[in-house]
């Protein structure tokens, strides 16, 4: 799912200077899954914001609401009756949710409380690691189900660089496996090492963000 983490609270407060009534909106889907923007996190952040505002001599009223999904306009509509008197919205959804709120409530400043970082899996409680880079040209069929675009720091497609540490970790981050080492091991186990000898040509990045803002249009789904 889409994951992210809280912006530093100081950064959030910077935007909320002078705001007396805030609508703090969570999302019960992706950002709840990664403990950044679900109801629990909303209810944790709200008192922190109130206390921080009080420290500066101001008083901040925080109205909280967690939507099932902020990227669904139907759910966003539930906020309409809560915006009365609110001077700003702080969203703990991913960037998609923040924009959905901003689009529905253009008269209100909508600020992100979360930095969306990646498309990740939860490896174990509290650990989310990137799996997909949304490159638009999936190579998982050629790399034994391990993605070098997302999981290699250099997105190499033809094997590991010379930076694999002795323990098989990546030179960029000691906690990250060298994905090409894992791909090699899997190829070996499958008896398909020769697949890795094939020269992979330069990638077509035009279907990713590099080709411009993404757009998938299925006219057949509109009547």
């Amino acid at each position, binding site marked *: 799912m889409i994951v992210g983490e809280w912006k530093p609270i100081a950064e959030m407060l910077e935007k909320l200077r002078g705001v007396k009534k805030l609508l703090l909106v969570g999302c019960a889907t992706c950002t709840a899954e990664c403990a950044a923007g679900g109801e629990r996190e909303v209810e944790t952040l709200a008192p922190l914001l109130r206390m921080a505002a009080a420290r500066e001599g101001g008083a901040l009223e925080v109205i909280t609401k967690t939507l099932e999904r902020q990227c669904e306009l139907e759910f966003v509509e539930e906020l309409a009756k809560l915006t009365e008197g609110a001077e700003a919205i702080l969203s703990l959804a991913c960037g998609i949710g923040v924009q959905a709120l901003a689009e529905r409530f253009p008269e209100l400043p909508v600020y992100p409380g979360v930095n969306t970082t990646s498309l990740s899996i939860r490896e174990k409680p509290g650990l989310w690691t990137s799996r997909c880079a949304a490159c638009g040209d999936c190579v998982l069929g050629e790399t034994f189900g391990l993605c070098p675009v997302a999981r290699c*720091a*250099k*997105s*190499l*497609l*033809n*094997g*590991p*660089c*010379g*930076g*694999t*540490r*002795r323990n*098989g970790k990546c*030179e*960029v*981050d000691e906690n990250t496996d*060298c994905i090409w*080492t894992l791909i*090699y*091991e899997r190829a070996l186990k499958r008896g398909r*090492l020769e697949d*890795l*000898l094939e*020269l*992979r*040509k*330069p*990638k077509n*990045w035009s279907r990713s963000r590099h080709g411009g803002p993404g757009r998938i249009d299925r006219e057949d789904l509109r009547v």
Partner: protein
Amino acid sequence: MNYRSGSRLEKVLAGGKFALTVEVGPPRSADPEVMRQKAGLLKGYADGYNVTDNQTAVVRMSSLAGAKLLLEAGCEPVLQMTCRDRNRIALQSDLLGASALGIRNCLCLSGDHQKAGASGKLKGHPGAKNVYDVDSIQLVSILKGLRDQGRQEGGDTVDGPVPFFIGAAWTPLAPPEEFRVLRLAKKIAAGADFIQTQAVYDVRRFASQLKKAREMGLTERAAILAGVIVPRSAAMLKYMNKNVPGVEVPEELVKRMEKAGEPQAEGVKITLELLDALRGLPGLAGVHLQAIEAEQLLPEIIRAAGLYPRPEV
């Protein structure tokens, strides 16, 4: 003789002679004198002079400019080109430009990631957006396409020759070790004419990998030059052993440097021993000698190793 590039390095190798390349690091400045001075020190001492490309992701004078300055000063450069900072458009464009300026050797590298780079006190640019549009093997292939087919990666043609002697790097001792020779094979299949390896301190282990390369016929298809970095202190050896992937330093060498009364002299001694041991390895076409930020040590070492003067071509 039909040369691919006509560079001195290519000619020395084609003539079956043991080749020697050295590394010249460009300055963190816009001062051309630094490169000219280094050229002055090293002229005539090597067959090719590698100019690094923003090594460890720290901004230095570009390798293209550095290479041109060396060329003007009488040292044939090996242009190092990484995939970290330039997309395929810029890479091909820079290659055409380099060729126009008379640069004939290019070493294609993936490039140190900007977060891993900036050794020690330097800050680097860890917040930069990296490119890695293509990888080093694809770059080799792209360069071969320009040279041998007159064709750009996207299909457009280029007019006229783009002579280049194409190089790639090899880190034979980084894990997974068994895959490293296969990856070397891939680079050579993609078009690499010469290979420069990561620094060797453990000759025995390197020899074992080189043997596998030989058995696969790779040493006939490309010239492999073993990398040698002149040790200046025990701390330096320990640092490299710990932090530079693929560099394996045997304990005895560290101990020797620690015990030495004059570590610098001991480092030169070790370098000479390494050069000697490597020259004896069947299939090795040469060495790539580096004295990081201490290029002034190289002439003495090259002479003492019996590698001076360089062969006539």
